[in-house]
């Protein structure tokens, strides 16, 4: 039994409680109310005075690197990193080696996750066999085995006819198609955003149209096929405008962006900082503002981390050889608080929508809610704690955070998943 004392619960934008107690018995929330009787012999008592209690988070886009790249991350280490950041459901992308493009691989991820993961891991299957963009993968079999979406993430399905077929076919299985929008003819050889910083550093630029032209294409394909397209890691103002227009047309489109795109700009790359090399690249202040407005208006539905672990040796190299990506689980919540809530762009309740309700809805799951009778999946967060992102404090096997050295406000202090304490008072127990 766990008793959380003096909790202020935030279930959504419109649902904030007075200070109350939460009693957890086994995996469920047994009772919510004032002055629940304490029994220190039978209960673990957690004092949440001055802190918020929120439903735990769901990430619909991350990379766990198993199988094939376990030196960067594996299902166990990635899940622990996610738990440390307050995520208790995560969807891992299929660009492993071998890729998750068939039912056996989906089954493997599910099996490994049951064995080693303290949280729920949901596999995303590939759109095309071998992620080669040539033939559709067995989408139905993968769905049967437990895949919750399909994506060739890391690569764009450049063949528009194949993408159209993927959208049509996915409808039979009610599975969203997650699109990595990148016209590789436009982005070829590019390292960072094409703009001010590419001009002053001489690093090759990726034009913003590399993303937005494919966003436009996929929206049009989804409009005609009436399939569910999910545009992932949106980074440009034009993409936000296109998605807004598509929603107004009634297209079945959803979208996410990542903490780094709503907080950092291309200027992070100055000084040739490879930890700030991500794909799509960090853009401009104008894009950051457009993404925040997009989140505010509901054009962008949710936040994903695109947790992309890489080994130090893959980052401490020449800029063009450096792998793209930043880890993200452990900083996501604090980044949203620091850059959005602290700056009065959002209410704390909006974070619950962005990290819980909306991502879960996109993949067909009901939201985690802190209510009597529901599963005890929640986090306790301290909004006042300030901390510096340092390599030595990172749980993930990889330390390639674009936020290294940054001071963030707020911290995920305690994490409970299905009634089990995974993290308590900042210490990971899983």
């Amino acid at each position: 039994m766990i008793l959380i004392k003096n909790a202020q619960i935030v279930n959504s934008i419109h649902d904030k409680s007075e200070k109350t107690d939460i009693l957890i018995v086994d995996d469920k929330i047994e009772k919510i109310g004032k002055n629940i009787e304490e029994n220190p012999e039978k209960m673990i008592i957690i004092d949440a005075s001055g802190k918020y209690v929120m439903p735990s988070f769901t990430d619909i886009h991350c990379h766990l690197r198993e199988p094939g790249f376990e030196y960067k991350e594996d299902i166990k280490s990635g899940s622990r990193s996610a738990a440390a950041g307050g995520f208790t459901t995560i969807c891992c992308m299929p660009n492993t080696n071998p890729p998750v493009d068939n039912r056996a691989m989906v089954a493997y991820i599910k099996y490994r996750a049951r064995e080693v993961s303290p949280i729920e891991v949901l596999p995303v299957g590939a759109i095309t066999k071998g992620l080669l963009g040539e033939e559709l993968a067995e989408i139905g079999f993968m769905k049967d085995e437990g895949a919750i979406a399909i994506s060739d993430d890391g690569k764009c399905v450049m063949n528009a006819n194949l993408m159209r077929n993927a959208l049509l076919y996915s409808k039979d299985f009610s599975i969203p198609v997650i699109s990595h929008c990148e016209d590789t003819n436009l982005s070829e050889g590019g390292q960072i955003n094409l703009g001010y910083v590419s001009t002053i550093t001489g690093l090759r630029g990726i034009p913003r149209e590399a993303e937005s032209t494919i966003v436009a294409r996929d929206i049009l394909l989804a409009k005609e096929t009436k399939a569910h397209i999910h545009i992932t890691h949106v980074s440009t103002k034009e993409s936000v405008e296109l998605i807004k227009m598509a929603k107004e047309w009634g297209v079945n489109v959803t979208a996410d962006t990542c903490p780094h795109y709503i907080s950092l700009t291309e200027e992070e790359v100055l000084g040739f900082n490879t930890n700030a090399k991500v794909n799509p690249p960090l853009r401009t202040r104008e894009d950051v503002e457009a993404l925040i407005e997009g989140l505010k208006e509901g054009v962008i539905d949710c936040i994903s981390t695109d947790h992309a672990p890489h080994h130090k040796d893959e980052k401490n190299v020449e800029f063009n050889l450096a792998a793209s990506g930043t880890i993200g689980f452990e900083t996501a919540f604090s980044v949203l608080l620091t850059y959005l809530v602290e700056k009065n762009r959002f209410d704390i309740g909006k974070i619950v929508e962005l990290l819980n309700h909306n991502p879960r809805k996109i993949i067909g799951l009901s939201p985690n809610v802190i209510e009597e009778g529901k599963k005890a999946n929640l986090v306790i967060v301290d909004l006042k704690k300030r901390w510096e992102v340092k390599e030595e404090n990172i749980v993930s096997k990889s330390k390639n955070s674009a936020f290294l050295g940054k001071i963030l406000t707020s911290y995920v202090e305690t994490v409970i998943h299905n009634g089990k304490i995974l993290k308590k008072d900042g210490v990971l127990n899983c």
Partner: protein
Amino acid sequence: MKHLLGLKELSKEDIIKILNLAKDMKTILKSETKKTPHLQGYSVVTLFYENSTRTRTSFELAAKFMSANTTSISVQTSSVQKGESLLDTVKTLEALKTDVLIVRHSVSGVPHFIAKNCSFSVINAGDGMNEHPTQALLDMFTIRERLGTIEKLKIAIIGDILHSRVARSNIWGLSKFDNQITVFGPQTLIPPYIENFAKVASSLEEAVSGKDVVIDLRIQLERQKRGFITSKQEYYKFYGLNEDIMRYISGSTMIMHPGPVNRGVEISSEVMQLPNSTIEEQVTNGIAVRMAVLYLCTRKEGIYR
């Protein structure tokens, strides 16, 4: 000054210091023996990942004239061919007691990467599209020698601005001295936001008219296939410094080119031979500037280490 990575981060005072010292070094170049003991006992290594004749030879001669022990690593015959990483090459050079590494690489930022990972001095001899600081310094030296100043001048840079590390270093360096800089080239070769740093001319005539200095850039012919330019002939007609365009250039305007020159593409042989042209002078001045840079990189506040 431990490293010379670029002119973007170098102060105006440091640039003047280098140019003044280069003037002294040029007197050594003019002497019969061309030998000084300034770098005696120092180990200077050149590591060029791109082909180069003039820059590499210029650096090597500069180091040799100052009595350094010099070594050239040819990437084509080095461990790089066995798959050795740049980081490991750097660590090896450190273990081999290198004092100064002169590096050229096709990737922007490589000298910065090396400087972060080594204890020796690093001199950037050209990195990708980023900077070629000694080329800009020798350009500035040549301008000052000819015109008596590097301040408040009207300077045009013509050609492939997008890919040119020479253009960037010249813009960063010359901008520190209150010069008016104009750039011109095909729209495909003009990088975004360059208008923050230089005026973008709308024609070659406009670009060169009334200028004190015209710096013409080299075109890499392989860019033709990537859709940046259409043909050598068309480039010469619309963007080349030929006899027609000389009508807009006065007799006192300096015409510069970092070389090697594509004759009949960027510039005509006739224009190259005009008294305004300083192309050969630039090469000689390059040695003096590189001697000055080597000297400063091996000194702590001007005192022998």
